[in-house]
């Protein structure tokens, strides 16, 4: 299983990540961070759709996203 983690205090709510996710699971949350930005998130129910492609992290200007992938067998 792959998954992503957002660092809320780094996210500026630019929403660029929402435009590149092949699974379209990233959306704007209702939460504001301390800087007043409405942060992006993946809803818990949608996380199992994440492929770990890292497109969201590549386009994020603020290094707010960490991407995890399952370790392959035997590696």
């Amino acid at each position, binding site marked *: *299983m*792959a998954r992503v983690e957002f660092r809320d*205090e*780094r996210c*500026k*709510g*630019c*929403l*660029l990540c*929402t*435009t*590149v996710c092949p699974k379209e699971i990233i959306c704007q949350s209702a939460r504001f961070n301390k*800087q007043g*930005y409405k942060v992006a998130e993946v809803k818990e129910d949608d996380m199992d759709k994440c492929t*770990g492609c*890292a*497109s969201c*992290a*590549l*386009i*994020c*200007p*603020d*290094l707010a*996203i*960490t*991407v*995890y*992938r*399952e*370790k392959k067998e035997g590696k």
Partner: protein
Amino acid sequence: MSAEQIAFKAPEIMIDRATHYCPGCHHGIAHRLVGEVLTEMGLVDDTLCVGSIGCSVFIYNYLNVDAVEAPHGRAPAVATGLKRSRKDKFVFTYQGDGDLASIGMAEIVHAANRGERISVVFVNNTVYGMTGGQMAPTTLIGQKTTTCPAGRCLDREGAPIRMSEIIGGLGGTAYCERASLDSVKNIRRAKKAIRKAFEVQQQGIGFGFVELLSGCPTNWRMDAVAANKRITEEMIPYFPLGVYKDVTAEGGCACTEHGTDSKEDK
């Protein structure tokens, strides 16, 4: 539970602090790509970064390498001095379009033409971002800015300058490419372009230049998603992506007279 591995995380060379950039500003992506390439080339401890005047003036707050700050437009001149006195260091400048193509036009053209063994990262966002979005030499025809509120006029202000075409046409340039930061595919390509522009310096071949078409949502008066669309639909057609010079593909050296031995001379 199966074991996990990290597929992407913030590179270690990036200092762990939030940037002062606006939401969706591409300086953040450009910084990260530079950091990743320096890391992958093993240059982190041997790099001298020359910052310029513009929103990226604080690059040394984000990229953990030795850095000096150059006066407006003069980064290629400062980098020339650094490299000539410290040939053991990897020297790069990071400049905006107001800095590089306007006040700094003479410095960039002559540094490239001399074939200085330096690399230049040129972030073209078609405005003077830092000072409030005034017209730059790169501003597109019809683009509204605070100093051309009715839109840039070809007759009055001239055509937007295409820097990669100019730099690619100079004798000392070893590698010159224009890339863009508007999509995942283009960001991947941009990283390879940065790497090439850095490698020609390490190989002692000549001057390396990479232009990155970038968004300035704030001064374009649009959100980040619309800004990316503007790059795709308006900037790329006028500023075509691609390699404008690559002497490594031509099998030669930018400096035909002296060969590739310049890294070794003292």
